[in-house]
């Protein structure tokens, strides 16, 4: 009898283990490559020397002070955005949902636009602005994103259907977007320039001092998301089934929005609006692991998000490019074909 049960209920754990190990291994390799490659080329032997023996090498600053924080920021942002996107896709049962769906990143843009306008309107020169700009912009983006998040949470307690909530989110994004445009219209060239740069996204804005805070916050958001896996699994069955299985829909959707929104707000504040990672990675995870079980899918999405972000960061800094490519164009370039593929694959499977 027991062997019957084992036989019937056996899951394909060997495949899962294999894919997990591959995902982690690729992550480590990509991480090392992120430290190795960049506009300054470092020979392998000197690279290992610097990494293993520390302070003797002249490349120390480049690797440890510049590339290391950037690589860590990239992997954290990849984890957070991908998990955040997964939560949105499950909550709204929409394969094209992503972290920006509820207007939270538009709120961040609005916050930054305010700083830009205030900076120019109060006559602060660009040099003054740049002194506090990285941190000031981060704070402004975070406040803007969080304001939208709180607004969405307040409204979600009054709305019955998920569709209305998405519509409200999109409308908020439009409002934030148009106010941002108006602010941009009145701001001066220099301010505009820094706004555009922020909008391109970057993993190099998190200073070494801010990194521990950023890491802890991403970890808190991701672990919080993982703890919601039961609710997320039940929501996949549909709202009425979930409710019948003990899910308080209103409270659960608020918790999911809070977890996803917190990660989005945090990462958008530090790295700018990063497109496509949050949309594409959950689909890759579902496909590679052939699963919709969030107990597996959340860690899988996190690690694949780390891989993809590190890969995009590497592409953006290929030695042949002068300086960094805007990270947003790289993520979109890699993410969009994946989303296209998902659309066609979905059609094929549903046939």
């Amino acid at each position, binding site marked *: 009898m027991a062997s019957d049960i084992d036989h*019937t*209920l056996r899951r394909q754990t060997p495949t899962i283990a294999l894919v997990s190990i591959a995902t982690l291994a690729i992550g480590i390799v990509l991480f090392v490559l992120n430290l190795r490659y960049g506009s300054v080329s470092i020979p392998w032997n000197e690279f290992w020397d610097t990494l293993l023996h520390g302070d003797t090498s002249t490349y120390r600053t480049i690797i440890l002070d510049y590339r290391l924080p950037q690589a860590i920021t990239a992997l954290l942002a990849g984890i957070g955005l991908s998990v955040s996107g997964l939560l949105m896709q499950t909550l709204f049962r929409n394969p094209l949902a992503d972290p920006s769906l509820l207007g939270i990143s538009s709120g961040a843009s609005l916050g930054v636009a305010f700083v830009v306008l205030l900076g120019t309107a109060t006559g602060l020169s660009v040099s003054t602005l740049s002194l506090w700009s990285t941190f000031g912009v981060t704070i402004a983006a975070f406040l803007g994103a969080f304001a939208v998040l709180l607004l969405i949470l307040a409204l979600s307690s009054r709305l019955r259907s998920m569709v209305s909530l998405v519509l409200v989110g999109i409308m908020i994004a439009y409002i934030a977007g148009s106010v941002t445009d108006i602010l941009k219209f009145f701001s001066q060239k220099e301010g505009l320039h820094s706004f555009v740069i922020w909008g391109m996204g970057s993993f190099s804005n998190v200073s070494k001092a801010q990194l521990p805070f950023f890491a802890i916050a991403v970890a808190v958001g991701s672990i919080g998301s993982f703890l919601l*896996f039961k609710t997320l699994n039940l929501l996949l069955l549909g709202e*009425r*089934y979930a409710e019948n299985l*003990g899910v*308080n829909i209103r409270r659960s959707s608020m918790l999911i929005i809070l977890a996803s929104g917190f990660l989005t707000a945090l990462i958008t504040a530090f790295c700018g609006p990063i497109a496509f990672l949050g949309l594409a990675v959950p689909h890759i995870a579902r496909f590679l692991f052939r699963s919709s079980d969030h*107990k597996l899918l959340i860690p899988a999405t996190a690690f694949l998000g780390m891989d993809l972000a590190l890969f995009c960061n590497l592409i953006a800094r290929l030695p042949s490019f002068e300086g960094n490519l805007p990270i947003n164009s790289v993520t979109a370039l890699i993410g969009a074909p994946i989303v296209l593929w998902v659309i066609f694959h979905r059609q094929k499977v549903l046939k």
Partner: protein
Amino acid sequence: MNEVLHTTNLLIGYKGQALMPAIDVSLTEGDIVALAGPNGSGKTTLFKTLSASLKPVGGEVKLFGKDLRDYSPTERSSLFSLVLTEKPDDLFLKVFDIVAAGRYPHLGLLAKLKAEDEQIIYDSLETVGISHLVNRNFVSLSDGEQQKVMISKALVQDTPLIFMDEPAAFLDYPSKIELVNIMHKLSREKHKTILFSSHDLDLLLRHADVMWVVAPQQPLRQGTPKELVDQEIIDEYFKPIVAKDEFFWMK
């Protein structure tokens, strides 16, 4: 026999508007009860009211002697389970995932399945006859197979009462026969109480122990299928719709 559910002066509807006269019905343990009526007769409204997704306009629903709405969602999850017409549509959702989700109310924070839970899942798959489908993707199954998965989920939930909304709606004839057999097994062997709805004069109705018949603005009538046919209530309740349809074609 034990009483599972009863209603007193229950008024169902939306925005304070009652759809039909007050309803006084009860469910007895182990019964298969059919809720039948043409489309738009208030079947779904009654169904949703009895399964706590809709507030009654008036009166009360008592489940095991306590008002339905006084239970918490968690408590309700161990008292009745649902089999609905809406289906999960996620591409990578496996049969196992859905059936195991039925066990969630009984599991802890990390949803770890104990040997006992695996036994229950296995038994329910066997009872419904789908253990060979356990690793399949849900969306790749036929309507009949999907229906069985949802019934298996309801079984795993281990509730004394099961609501099935239009369980025969998308099934072909052999699948309907199978469904009847499964319902009998659940009621006679596992003493489950089953309330199912049907908008059609379906073969399922013949196999009900008790029938509730509804029509717009008419009082709910109950009896055994035979009684209701003999009293020509079925004819009366289903006829207006047929007559109206005929009139429509004549115009």
